[in-house]
């Protein structure tokens, strides 16, 4: 019995090490001097320097060895674009999905089943495949490389899953309170806003955070729809790879900046994230 427990912890510790190592290594690199970065054997103990961060924050003139994007670009274009597109699209998504989810889970109406299936079906569209039609469409109507276009794209891509999430959360809330409110003469929309929404807060938070992560992580859509002015963080990862060499340290530091929101959500909103990931399995 004891041996069994011991083995289980060994498995989990190996898993932990394997999972964390790539991230920890990147964080370590971002604090290494250029010499330590190329050291063989790889160095675990080193004296940390902030040079790489200094480069990102614009402290060093464009140095051929460092290359890469400069502070201005990161802090005035890429980071704001990533934040704005993720936050606004998630906000719109949650509102639209709450309404639709409410409809699908509380009303029995003609066409409910086909609509539900259509929504689940849309989820199967691979974003990389959707990127091409959207690229053509946005080019035609002049929405390409605009934040508005990017926000629309994220909203549309995320709505189906968000509806699914919200519908399942609403189904879990008791219908009686609402009915009481309706009998008291509340209109539907009032019942939704005043009675259902307060109970739904955790579900709304879960949906928002999950959609935020999906938008924040997106590369495929931004790659096609937002090449320059509306570019987001992940698009500039490769800009550290230049003909004269790769700026390893600053590249790692850039990765660390990009990772921060994900880490924050994992620490503070873990249960919400787990809900999002396991939803399809636990509740259909």
């Amino acid at each position, binding site marked *: 019995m004891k041996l069994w427990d011991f083995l289980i*912890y060994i498995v989990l510790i190996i898993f932990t090490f394997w999972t964390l190592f790539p991230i920890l290594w990147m964080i370590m690199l971002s604090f290494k001097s250029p010499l330590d970065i190329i050291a063989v054997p790889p160095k675990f103990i080193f004296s940390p320097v902030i040079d790489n961060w200094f480069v990102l924050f614009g402290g060093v003139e464009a140095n051929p060895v460092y290359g890469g994007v400069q502070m201005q670009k990161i802090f005035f274009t890429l980071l704001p674009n990533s934040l704005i597109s993720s936050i606004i699209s998630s906000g719109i998504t949650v509102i639209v999905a709450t309404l639709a989810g409410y409809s699908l889970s509380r009303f029995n109406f003609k066409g409910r089943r086909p609509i539900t299936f259509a929504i689940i079906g849309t989820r199967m569209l691979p974003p990389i495949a959707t990127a091409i039609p959207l690229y053509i469409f946005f080019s035609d109507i002049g929405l390409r490389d605009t934040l508005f276009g990017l926000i629309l794209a994220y909203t*549309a891509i995320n*709505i189906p899953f968000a509806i699914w999430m919200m519908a399942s959360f609403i189904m879990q809330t008791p219908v009686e309170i609402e009915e009481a409110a309706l009998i008291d003469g509340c209109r539907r929309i009032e019942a939704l806003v005043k009675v259902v929404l307060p109970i739904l807060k955790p579900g709304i938070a879960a949906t928002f955070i999950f959609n935020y992560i999906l938008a924040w992580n997106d*590369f495929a859509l931004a790659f096609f729809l937002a090449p320059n002015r509306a570019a987001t963080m992940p698009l500039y990862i490769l800009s550290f790879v230049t003909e004269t060499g790769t700026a390893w340290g600053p590249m790692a530091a850039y990765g660390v900046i990009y990772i921060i929101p994900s880490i924050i959500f994992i620490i503070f909103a873990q249960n919400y994230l*787990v809900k999002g990931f396991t939803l399809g399995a636990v509740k259909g």
Partner: protein
Amino acid sequence: MKRKLFNILYPYLFLLPAFIILFVVLAYPWLNSFYLSFHSYRPGVSEEINFVGLENYYSIFKDKLFGISTYNTIFLLIGEISIQFILGLLIALSLNSIKSFRRFFRTVALLPLVLAPALSSLAWRFLVDPVRGFINGFLLMLGIKGPDWIGDPNYALLTILVIEVWKFTPYVTLILLAGLQGIPPPLLEAAAIDGATRWQSFRYITFPWLKPFIAIALLFRTMFVLRTFEIIYLLMGLGGPGNSAMVYGTYLVYLTRKLWDLGLGSAMSIILVVITGIISIGYFMFLYKGGD
């Protein structure tokens, strides 16, 4: 009377905003692409849109690169799904049986899953780079000259497989863990009282219970393997060394970005969706027919 009509309309009104957005931003562009997939359309070269019938589909199916993409996608599918299933199940069972630190290990499992694919690619670049990467540096310390994980056609796809296993095994773990936590304790207690061994209670209670969860996890993994793109693109460019890591996702980008043919690109988008659809429907049928 007015109130009654309203009650009929209500559910549709609530659905309207979602419907409008989905129609304008998804359905219309897709229909447009479906139309273009039968045309030749190269906006940079000429603005003409010429009807070519099935020419685009024909030339994709004839293309050697499409064959390579198919082969590599199947390789990734089989490799990922089998490895992720075994490891995911192992870790989920371990997590389910411990009493302390469960939350800590679950946090760990969430990490690669929540990270952007682009970031996974970046973090792994620091490990698999042939000259400065950790792995080859470590091997060199042992006196072994490591291979070029990124640039050698023999290793490129394998490297991608390892990164994908790293990133997505936790997904299978989370789903299966959710399943395991739903097993009613009396079921297992009864088995224990009847003297069932650990293997027997796994074989006859846990595993059958997990089946639908396994099916869902594998369905979603399959759908997501089919859209693999950024990890490959950011690590080794479109298709990897000598196209040895070309998959559907990168092939699609190759058609639009390299060949600059939006007709071809549209056709490939349609093909990818159809393939995803067929596999998903297959899964569903399996799930509802032979599931339990």
